[in-house]
């Protein structure tokens, strides 16, 4: 592999192979699905799943940076998605009528991402003082806290500006005023400006950020801190700083995913982003393989679509889903199959 020349050699050498495969998979899936969409060969159910699928992909890629590359178990990813989702909806709501949809979507995603990064930073300060199981439990709690805060948040907007409240107050709204977030009822009357193309671009963006980070000074420091804390410190790496970097970037990607998600539905409630969603994203990451982003892509798509495709089974749906999860775990952990796969890979290389 090392001695191949030219562009193909560059794309397929050890360092670039996995990212080449990632980009190719995403591009191929996008082109295929766009053709099916344009020719009307995609069912309504399936079409409706495209944007949420890209959202979960972005959130899972971010989580894999935190769990796989940085090695810290985070059970609060859905909380960060919620921050991005509701801030994105607010941004879009405020700018509606003055800014065209495409630009509004971009702004909503960027602001959602930055705000979530900031929330991630604040939460990271206490959380990253912990390690292992304790860190996992605290992130789970923070995810729930964020969700509950948003469930009690009222945000309204009129010509005089934006109004916030944590009590069910009746804002006196002027001409053309409306509620952007209405407490437990969530965001209502959102204009649906998200689309599959934007989702795909966001997935590519997430992959570029994560891959470029990993193959850099910062990425090596993050992995060094994961592999051996004491040795990493001994060569002058600030553990707190590197862990924070991975945590914040992971949160930011969840925030971007959330913003896109929020703008894909006309109504959305905060309880959608409870710990079940966090666990779901974690399952995608773990079954795809820690630190393996191609695995994350494949596992997320399959496991996201599976429950939808099993709808016909009605009550047995989640039972089958659970059985499939267990089977995947057994197969991927089977010593015989693993060694077979490893020897196959060696022959190829």
């Amino acid at each position, binding site marked *: 592999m*090392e001695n191949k020349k030219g562009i193909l050699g560059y794309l397929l050498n*050890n360092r670039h192979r996995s990212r080449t495969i990632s980009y190719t998979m995403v591009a191929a899936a996008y082109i295929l699905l766009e053709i099916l969409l344009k020719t009307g060969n995609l069912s309504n159910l399936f079409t409706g799943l495209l944007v949420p699928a890209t959202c979960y992909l972005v959130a899972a890629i971010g989580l894999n940076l935190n769990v796989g590359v940085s090695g810290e178990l985070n059970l609060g990813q859905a909380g960060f998605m919620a921050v991005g989702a509701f801030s994105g909806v607010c941004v879009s709501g405020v700018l509606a009528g003055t800014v065209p949809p495409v630009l509004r979507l971009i702004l909503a995603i960027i602001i959602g991402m930055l705000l979530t990064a900031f929330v991630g930073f604040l939460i990271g300060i206490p959380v990253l003082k912990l390690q292992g199981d304790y860190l996992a439990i605290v992130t789970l709690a923070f995810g729930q806290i964020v969700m509950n805060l948003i469930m009690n948040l009222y945000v309204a907007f009129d010509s005089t500006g934006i109004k916030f409240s944590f009590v069910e107050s009746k804002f006196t709204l002027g001409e053309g005023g409306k509620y952007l977030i209405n407490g437990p009822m969530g965001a209502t009357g959102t204009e649906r400006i998200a689309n599959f193309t934007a989702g795909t671009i966001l997935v590519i963006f997430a992959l*570029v*950020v994560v891959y*470029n*980070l990993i*193959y*850099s*000074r*910062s*990425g*090596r*420091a993050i*992995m*060094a801190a*994961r*592999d*051996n804390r*004491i*040795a*990493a*410190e*001994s*060569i*002058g*790496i*600030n553990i707190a700083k590197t862990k924070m*970097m991975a945590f914040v970037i992971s949160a930011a990607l969840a925030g971007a995913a959330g913003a896109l998600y929020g703008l894909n539905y006309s109504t959305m409630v905060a309880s959608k982003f409870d710990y079940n969603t966090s666990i779901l994203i974690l399952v995608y990451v773990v079954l795809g393989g820690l630190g393996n982003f191609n695995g994350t892509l494949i596992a997320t798509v399959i496991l996201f679509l599976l429950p939808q495709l099993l709808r016909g089974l009605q009550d047995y749906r989640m039972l089958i889903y659970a059985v499939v999860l267990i089977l995947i775990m057994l197969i991927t952990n089977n010593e015989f199959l693993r060694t077979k796969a490893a020897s196959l890979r060696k022959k190829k290389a």
Partner: protein
Amino acid sequence: MSTKATPILEVKELGIDFGGLTAVNDLDLAIYDKEIVGLIGPNGAGKTTVFNLLTKVYKPTRGSIFFDGKDTAGKTVVDINKAGIARTFQNIRLFNNLTVLDNVRTAYHNNIRYSPVEAVFRLPGYYAKEREIEGKSRELLEIMELGQYAEVTAGNLPYGAQRRLEIARAMATEPKLLLLDEPAAGMNPQETDDLMRMIRFVRDHFEIAVLLIEHDMQLVMGICERIYVLNYGMLLAQGVPAEIQANPDVIKAYLGD
């Protein structure tokens, strides 16, 4: 050696207690530029504790450590490495999931810097700095005779190579003083000979001082210019190898009465 002006490392009346146990007490050390100094003593004498005190893993209970003329009180492990002390570990601590080359590249963290933004957007600074890091890292791997293993995952290296990789990684932080904790442990005589040659080369090439803990007397007597002997956390003797070998206290400490 004591004719030289100021030592690079000067330890005065250093001591540490763990609860009621005094692990190191009243220790005076001085290491000068470009010296190779040995720290020996029976098991449990407190040698590794001294390394942990020098690198601020432990905070001393008493005494002071001056490095490069400055008091190191209040510094952290990270600060000490930035100041110019690098170390290896008795129980090998590599980044096992990274390649040999990446282990060394990682250690250029503070000496060749660029921001995460430059990395994520692949700005020109990224390429220039990465080339520099890779060039220097490969040079270190060649010195430690690890060039053939560059792309191997560190956890899969043979034992002796792992010890040499720890030295290469420590050297990548561009230290003025290198602390080696039993670098020859588990090596056969041939490997130990090679290691001695490499340590000498590193000292001459990078013009650094080396302080090493070692039980292998072939290495200690063959390479060290001065030796400190530690027993029960206290300094038992110091001097050139010939003096130490002839010192009755040292022989008693090692062999008993």
